[in-house]
């Protein structure tokens, strides 16, 4: 694909990796915030080309992983109702709630459908006036504009049978939570390129100043990630701490203004629970008063549903970089990709699933010398 294959060039990748080796003089811990970046790193073996001193910590930026258990349970309760068409992005279907997942609800008769866009769910609502169509609106700032747009369109058209179960989360408050955690080990961040394409990177300037932490806006292809790491290491080695944009082909300081406008019209900030981490103040979006009529939580009266996470699951510490997945006592025992305790073992970009698959390989490599 034009404009993508250029950023997968092995020779240039090795050249940038060589440059990272050259400038690295001591250990550094860098967190890639976004699950898409984690996926790319695992998919390409990017970390294997880095110097031993550079440690990548997989951050809490996988929307599948951080959506709280009780929100999953609410989704399951709504999806099981007769007369409901429940629409979701594909990889949410296997995320375990307290007792089951959406696949199970589907097998028990729930009408659960995978869509690529919330606007497809709006189309379904138009085409099925006798059904209640609910979209599972999760994710970071990246997925939020389309979700906001779906509600906006539904309101404009007076669609009475469309609603959205919102559990949006935001990157800057998560970075703040990580940096103020006593167990924090993160010394620099690769900021999520697609989040910044929507929001710009002006929000990160005060964070870099306040915590004296380098933040590099980074893309997703192998060369993007090497370049992000190179710039982060360079700053760390020089004792600098600024926001640097290594994804200029997509991201500007101000971001996407029309997208931000629709977000401001539909959503307002709220405290939000993150799976495994807990409540982070003002770290999410919910529908504001003008759009609260489209809130599936209200429409289906599921607000009271609460859930307790497995005490065996340490995904919160993993997501904050305080624990490696294979240091978790449940890892590979009670918790495997086949029977995951937490979402970090479910998602292909979850840190635990990545470790599970890669770890098998690493162990046998050592075993074979």
């Amino acid at each position: 694909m034009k404009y993508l294959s250029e950023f997968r060039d092995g020779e240039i990748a090795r050249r940038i990796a060589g440059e990272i080796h050259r400038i690295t003089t001591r250990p550094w811990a860098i967190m890639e915030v976004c699950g898409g970046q984690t996926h790319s790193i695992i998919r390409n073996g990017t970390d294997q080309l880095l110097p031993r001193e550079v440690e990548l910590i997989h951050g809490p930026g996988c929307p599948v992983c951080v959506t709280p258990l009780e929100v999953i349970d609410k989704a399951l309760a709504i999806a099981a109702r007769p007369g409901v068409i429940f629409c979701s992005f594909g990889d949410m279907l296997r995320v375990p709630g307290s007792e089951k997942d959406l696949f199970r609800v589907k097998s028990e008769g729930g009408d659960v459908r995978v869509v690529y866009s919330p606007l497809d769910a709006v189309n379904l609502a138009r085409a099925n006036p006798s059904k209640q169509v609910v979209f599972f609106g999760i994710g970071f700032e990246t997925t939020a504009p389309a979700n906001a747009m779906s509600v906006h369109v539904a309101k404009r058209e007076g669609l009475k049978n469309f609603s959205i179960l919102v559990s949006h989360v935001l990157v800057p408050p998560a970075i703040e939570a990580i940096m103020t955690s006593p167990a924090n080990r993160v010394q620099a961040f690769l900021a999520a390129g697609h989040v910044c394409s929507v929001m710009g990177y002006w929000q990160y300037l005060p964070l870099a100043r306040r915590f004296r932490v380098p933040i590099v806006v980074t893309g997703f292809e192998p060369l993007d990630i090497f370049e992000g790491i190179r710039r982060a290491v360079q700053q760390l080695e020089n004792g600098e701490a600024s926001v640097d944009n290594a994804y200029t082909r997509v991201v500007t300081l101000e971001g996407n203004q029309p997208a931000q406008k629709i977000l401001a019209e539909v959503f307002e900030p709220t405290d939000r629970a993150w799976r495994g981490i807990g409540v982070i103040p003002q770290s999410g979006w919910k529908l504001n008063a003008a759009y609260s009529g489209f809130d599936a939580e209200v429409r289906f009266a599921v607000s009271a549903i609460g859930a307790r996470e497995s005490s065996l699951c340490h995904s919160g510490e993993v997501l904050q970089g305080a624990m490696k997945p294979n240091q978790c006592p449940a890892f590979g025992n009670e918790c495997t990709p086949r029977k995951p305790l937490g979402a970090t073992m479910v998602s292909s970009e979850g840190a635990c699933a990545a470790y599970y698959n890669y770890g098998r390989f690493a162990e046998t490599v050592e075993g074979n010398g």
Partner: protein
Amino acid sequence: MADPPDFNNWTCPLALRDYPNIVIGHGGGGKLSAELVEHLFLPAFRNEALENLGDSAVLHLPPGRLAFSTDSFVVRPLFFPGGSIGDLAVNGTVNDLAMSGATPLYLSAGFILEEGFPMASLAGVVEGMARAAQAAGVRIVTGDTKVVERGHGDGCYINTSGFGILPGHVRIGPAMAQPGDVVLVSGTVGDHGMAIMSVREGLEFDTLIESDCAPLHTMVRAILDATPRVHVLRDPTRGGVASSLNEIAAKSNAGIVIDERNLPVTPAVQAACDLLGLDPVYVANEGKLLAIVAPEAADAALAAMQAHPLGRNAAILGEVTAQRPGMLLARTPIGGTRVIPMQIGEQLPRIC
């Protein structure tokens, strides 16, 4: 063949025209069933064994060992870019037979139809089967039709079973890969799965990707004529190249390492996969094969594949190793290594 064919153009529709849709009686064994056979199945599949209309087909077999296989087809939508459930039902079983080194000869066809299924669509499916059978040189010699009540099926399900003959000396199987063997693929991967995905309800996207649905037994014949040292043949259908190679690694208790730079993927399939967050190694194929051959046979096998019309993009994908038995690894384009695990279920589109 994205649109169901026009019933008016069907060759022998007169007796069926009273019923534009399947009714329960079409599976009842009475006059309606007989009309379906006489006016639809017989004209399409025409051959001597079928025309006897006995309870079983009686066949003459050439010498050799018998290969026997069965497969059921439930694809949705029934018609998709590059083929239909009818093409799949024939080629799927033909290819399963071919992967043991057999020459496919005869198929059975069992239909489970849903009450209300349009006769025109059934005609289109049957037409596809007839065309595919002719192209593959196999005969559909026995069949059955059942009708289930509306709401209890999804239009049309097909089961085909088939057998073929293979020479006594051929020994091919998924447990026979050995360290040092070379892994070849017969062409671009992911075409069928992405063609289906592009027309699946709710996920439609504009693309020119067509299913690669095709019979592979003549390519198998060409490979076996070029070299006897073929250890494993596999058509990587559901779960794609990744699942087939994982199965082979597990059954052979050997490791397999592929080089992703050598994996043939069309730009359109790669772009669609990137867009949807899918990995082409897990996407289904219906007209490709994986061959695992002794190292000294690799060049001959590759040349035979590339000389075949369906194998022009054939490539050497990797090798079998003694290390890491049971695992599939890939060397990535940037020089890293990754594990390609067996999928738990279906590959799910990623959120972002």
